């Protein structure tokens, strides 16, 4: 006893003097609630370490939690969440159903992810949350709360001295703040902007358009005689590209088809390489609209990722989609409107046929090859200039 006391004094003295190095963040869970007109759903992430302290998950006591050990206690975990995360809509209790848990990693360890569905007596106007998770065993625990309704979102810290908090959800913000016309305009401008800063799309289109004022005869490019012929060629390429990317933009935005972004971005870069090289060593002469169509399909997925990143209003999805696509087309037409007269005027010069067609195309191909490598292997070769901003 005496020795024990002496040791504990020593120990504390030295603890006292080792400075107070707090090395972790305190315990926190993540609660997200989505309030929609018909439903209130959400997700609660609780740290497995906290659950272990509260419920003793580590059955065999070996210091490692297996999925089996966590899964076996699903009922207790769900019960804990039910008892300590209460929701009231306009004063009336909502009934909580908890789905099958999954696992997710946060920066400080693994969390149990619980899908939540509430049944509230009527559409939610005032939301009251009563959060007392771990309040009895760790008063420093907090819930990081994210409330989303329509386009709006709100964050708060739950627990501690304020277990009960209220949030107003007014009907006008639940439906999108944007009217149909406004959404059309806003997403139209976004589409315009993104074709403008999406250098890879511009270069793809230009590479296909460059030869449209020329004709390939006996292994060399000669100026076209007929403006109509060139115009029709441009029309075919632009239309094919537009139709194709409109199809996939729609499919991807509605999430009917989902492709990994790395595959999409890499293929877009490859399409630019191919289109540019075709101007130096023609492979698909007269078939450029087919190429525009095929690769246009992939470019549509690229546009879609931008649109998704913008955050789509679910209620005005189709308007947004239409507006965005319209913006892309307008941007494209603007490029063609500048390109065609210039190219037509210069088509007989050596500058155009050698400088632009050959050297220019090779430069485009080289640049696109760098992109391709970057995107395939997720490395960065070029200093990132804003103009090279691709869709990520």
């Amino acid at each position, binding site marked *: 006893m005496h020795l024990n006391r002496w040791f504990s004094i020593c120990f504390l003295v030295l603890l006292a*003097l080792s400075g107070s*190095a*707090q090395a972790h963040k305190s315990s926190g869970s993540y609660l997200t609630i989505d309030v929609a007109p018909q439903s209130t759903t959400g997700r609660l992430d609780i740290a497995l370490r906290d659950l272990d302290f509260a419920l003793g998950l580590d059955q065999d006591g070996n210091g*490692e939690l297996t999925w089996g050990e966590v899964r076996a206690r699903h009922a207790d975990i769900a019960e804990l969440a039910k008892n300590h995360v209460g929701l009231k809509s306009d004063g009336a209790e909502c009934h909580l159903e908890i789905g099958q848990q999954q696992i997710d990693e946060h920066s400080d360890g693994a969390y149990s992810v619980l899908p939540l569905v509430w049944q509230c007596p009527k559409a939610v106007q005032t939301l009251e949350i009563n959060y007392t998770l771990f309040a009895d065993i760790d008063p420093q625990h907090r819930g990081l709360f994210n409330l989303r309704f329509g386009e709006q979102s709100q964050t708060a810290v739950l627990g501690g001295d304020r277990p009960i908090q209220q949030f107003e959800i007014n009907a006008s913000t639940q439906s999108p703040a944007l009217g149909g016309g406004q959404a059309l305009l806003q997403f139209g401008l976004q589409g315009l902007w993104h074709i403008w800063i999406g250098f890879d799309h511009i270069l793809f289109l230009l590479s296909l358009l460059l030869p449209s004022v020329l004709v390939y005869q006996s292994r060399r490019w000669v100026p076209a005689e007929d403006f109509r012929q060139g115009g029709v060629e441009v029309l075919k390429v632009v239309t094919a590209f537009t139709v194709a990317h409109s199809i996939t933009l729609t499919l991807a935005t509605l999430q009917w088809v989902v492709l990994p972004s*790395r595959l999409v971005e890499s293929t877009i870069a490859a399409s630019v390489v191919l289109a540019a090289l075709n101007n130096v060593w023609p492979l698909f002469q007269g078939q450029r609209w087919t190429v525009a169509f095929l690769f246009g399909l992939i470019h549509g997925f690229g546009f879609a990722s931008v649109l998704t990143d913008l955050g789509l209003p679910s209620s005005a999805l189709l308007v947004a989609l239409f507006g965005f696509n319209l913006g892309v087309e307008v941007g494209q037409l603007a490029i063609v409107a500048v390109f065609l007269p210039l190219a037509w005027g210069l088509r007989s010069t050596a500058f155009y046929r050698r400088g632009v067609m050959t050297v220019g195309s090779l430069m485009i191909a080289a640049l696109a090859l760098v992109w391709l490598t970057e995107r395939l292997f997720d490395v960065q070769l070029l200093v990132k200039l804003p103009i090279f901003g691709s869709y990520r």
Partner: protein
Amino acid sequence: MSSIRLFLVALLAHIGWPLVALAAPHTPAADAVVVEKLPLRAQDPTSRELNRLRAAWRQDPQNPELAAELARAYFEQAVAEGDPRYLGYAQAALKPWWSVTEPPPVVRLVRGMVLQFSHRFPEAIVDLTEVSRLEPNNAVAWSWLAAVYLVTADYAKAREACDRLKPLAADLAVVGCLAYVDSLTGRAQFGLERLSSALLRQPKADPALRLWTLTRMAEISERLGENRLAEQHFRAALALDVRDTYLLAAFSDFLLDQGRPAEVLTLLKEFARADTLLLRLALAAKDAGSPNAAKYQQEMRERFDAARRQGDALHEKEESRFARSLLKENQRALALAESNYRIQREAADARALLEASIACRNPQSAEPVLEWMAQSRVESVILQSLARQVRAIKAPDLTKACT
């Protein structure tokens, strides 16, 4: 042909890979998959002791002795692991007395310790002073008072608290306490000699106490510019094989200052869990050009963000360093360092503020540190050199450097 196929397969694997690594809720493939490693195993002595204390406390949660004992055990765990979760557990045990003006001394002592760990220094001083007044022979109260006064740069009071320890605690602890004050008040060489002779006198001292002494000797040597000696002390402390977050952080900083980031990566490989050590890993990875640099940085950023959202302002010094060295957000780094220095005034806090002031070319903000350096006569090669750099800045140029 087959080589082309192989290439294509490799390519596809490469493209598909990020999908797998992407963090999203998932269902592990099998029950046997280990999803989390816990800091303690059930058989660990610490774990058993905590369970024993917890069971006793559960029987009688209103008993101040039992509550204080449990809270203290959690507190020690918080220090050893650097995990504030245990502070929360300690606070829960002290719940009946947490907001009471005059709790029983046994409870009040632990409350003061927990408060100081949460950087609530003025409240901690009130609790600890009151306990030491009621129980003048309480060595723990005096040692914590000394510690808090050191952090808040009140060296006269710190020395007094060390003196009061003399008849109560082990010789090495008392000498260590005084030597630490010496090292910050212009008598570093003297303090260092005192420490090393005390260590020689007590070869059988507890390893944890030896570790603490060696860490201090290393730090003082480093401040005196004797890097070779500092490294010897650091290595001797590490050789004791006692887990100590503070030692690892201090040695990592030493190595980073020496331009030896690769050694930090090896040293801390297993310790990314502690925020303070993850920061050093992120800094080292960047310096060494390690492929993990982005990953560490992202993780660190997420933890700071989560801590901030939680209203947790305990990491300002670290976050300032993170913002300045890795994010190049000099303005924010300066704001954090200034705010931190209002509460904590140790050498590392001073350094954070000097470095942030220099990055912002804002000598004015470094005034409190320069004042402290002049008053305390602290010896430190690094601090002196930074102070010279600050003084060399002609006029504040906020527009250019601080964005």
